[in-house]
């Protein structure tokens, strides 16, 4: 069952290799980086959960505008607080790895962009998305006029059934045609 003893068992290691897109070295590296975030007493507890704040200190996630959403999507905690166990962490790395398929990446990308977790991307979600992308400061934000124009354009392009929202299959249809998506949707430790 889960791990966070100081060593990964050989069986568990091979199971993880079977179930993720990561190679053995990547899993071991992930384990090392995960254990570095733990305090001394926590190291022996199996299935330990790390809180959102501590995960966000990882440099790979720190500069990412979607970091909180990413943690929420991969977290299996009942409290919905974005905390991650080692297995959640592996799921995260597997979806963002180089060898992951387009389907799995687009599935998780959709869930990350769905800020209110209702299964579709409506204009609120899109607005929050644009604000994340344009940074925190006032001079980089778009004016409300530009925002409205942008969202109209996007819905015009991607909303095929014209219901005012983008659902998973419309999203996947748009994304699969993009030449950039697979190479930019990558996180490497």
């Amino acid at each position, binding site marked *: 069952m889960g791990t966070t003893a100081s060593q990964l068992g050989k069986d568990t290691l091979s*199971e993880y290799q079977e179930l993720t897109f990561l190679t053995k*070295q990547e899993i071991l590296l992930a384990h090392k980086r995960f254990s570095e975030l733990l305090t001394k007493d926590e190291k022996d507890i199996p299935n330990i959960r790390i809180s959102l704040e501590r995960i966000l200190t990882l440099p790979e996630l720190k500069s990412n505008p979607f970091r909180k959403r990413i943690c929420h999507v991969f977290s299996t905690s009942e409290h919905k607080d974005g905390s991650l166990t080692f297995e959640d962490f592996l799921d995260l790395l597997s979806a963002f790895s180089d060898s992951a398929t387009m389907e799995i990446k687009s599935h998780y*990308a959709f869930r990350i962009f769905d800020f209110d977790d209702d299964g579709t991307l409506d204009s609120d979600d899109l607005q929050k998305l644009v604000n994340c992308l*344009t940074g925190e400061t006032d001079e980089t934000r778009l004016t409300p006029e530009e925002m409205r124009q942008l969202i109209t354009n996007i819905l015009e392009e991607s909303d095929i059934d014209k219901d005012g929202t983008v659902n998973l299959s419309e999203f996947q249809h748009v994304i699969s*045609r*993009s030449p950039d998506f697979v190479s930019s949707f990558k996180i490497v430790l």
Partner: protein
Amino acid sequence: EELEKLKEAVEDRKKLIQGLRGKPWPMKQKLVTLRESQEFVEKYEGALGKGKGRKFYAYKVMMTKKWMKFQRDFENFKTACIPWEMKIKEIEHFGSSVASYFLFLRWMYGINMILFGLTFGLVMVPEALMGRPYGSIPRKTVPRAEEGSAMDFAVLWDFGGYAQYSVLFYGFYNNQRAIGWLKYRLPLSYFLVGVGTVAYSYMVVIRRMARNANEGGVGDDNSFNFSWKMFTSWDYLIGNPETADNKFASITTSFKEAILEEQESRKDDNIHLTRFLRVLANFLVLCCLAGSGYLIYFVVRRSQKFTLDGLENHSWWERNEVNMVMSLLGMFCPMLFDVISALENYHPRVALQWQLGRIFALFLGNLYTFIIALMDEINVKSQREEEKIVKYNITMWEGSLYNGTLSENNTAAPITVHPADVPRGPCWETMVGQEFVRLIISDTMTTYITLLIGDFLRAVLVRFLNYCWCWDLEAGFPSYSEFDVSGNVLGLIFNQGMIMGAFYAPCLPALNVLRLHVSMYLQCWAVMCCNVPQERVFKASGSNNFYMAMLLVILFLSTLPAIYTIVSIPPSFDCGPF
């Protein structure tokens, strides 16, 4: 019946296990499913094995398991073996466009390694091991006249002296049909290796292009412009805050531009002025290209004159004029093109493509002018006459050795003449090889020096002079330099094109491998230490196939001269394997 159903169920479970990693389930659920399925498969596989062929079935199952494990281990091993993997992962934190340059560099390195292996293993080593050694026949020895200076560093640096009369160049190879105890057919292998190098390069590039076309979806499709900007513009590899800030700024700019463009695409003002300016800009660029072509031709002719006068009478600049001029042109003309393109007022992505196209034309023009000037030098008529003169001299000289008596069956006691004393025929192939080698070396040197001065020195100056300077050096001019991905990729592509002169100098792939190796480390260091992340990040996205297409064109265009010379100009009689 039931056995069949059971077999199917087991197969289904196996497929499920293989597809598990692609399912968007949390790890706990996947683990549970995995263990369940594995138990099921183990239990029933035993049952299926009853009856005839049980042992064979069990054996087959065990072999499949071992094979899967072997495959997985091999994959792990392969990833561990990839050179520079760690270094590139570090650079990926800068963003994927810079990393893409290094990935391209690594791929080129792989190709060059293979080319090197081919030329080294099949041509240079057999000649060195099994051919007649240095000094045994005339074409392999430094002529008596040059012996005094053959070991001088200046001469060696110019690839004359001992370097010229070695396996590095075409002229060394003997035209014996088969050499050594293996009866190794050297001339045949030389020719085939030449053909093989070209064929391999083509094949590799085309295969890459096909793979890119498959994965990349539709290249320049503009139908989802805004959605793509929204959903795919963030680069998740970015790991440092400076790059992230730059990325935010560039995304905002790109949104604003796109919105503006959408609105202005109806407007139509002043199209005549724009058209006129664009035509003017193209005309200026053509003038530049023509000017640089003429300059190179002029300089090569001058260097011919210098060689006739004897090289010692001229300064270092005059001796290396050709290479210096070509490298300097390659450095300054792109900047000129950049300035001219300000007239044109294109969308930045389109402007970048025009810029790349013009730099490509510049390099191509330079390379071709160089080759044409070289071929002029190998002017066939004068070559023939020279050969006739030398042949006549040789017969006279031989006659003088035998004291005027040429016996009928030529079995007179062979007079031992030191090979260095035999008069030599002209050897244009080695000369061509030498010119290519010199060109590549000077090109490499220029790149490294520009890197050191343009990036490193600039960074040092900006950092330290900033304390005592009137305006903020870091924000305004000159500030730190950015890493120019497209310029560097073009440089690599042209480098590869020049290697195709390898037919006349088998040492070229070896040189190139060395150069790429050093470049990797030097440029990695420069990127991490002196460069800042690019402000306008233009994903070289659909351009992946753009660069591959350029590479293909260059390969084709650089094999043309080699083929032309093989077909039209007869090989020297005293030189090389033919």
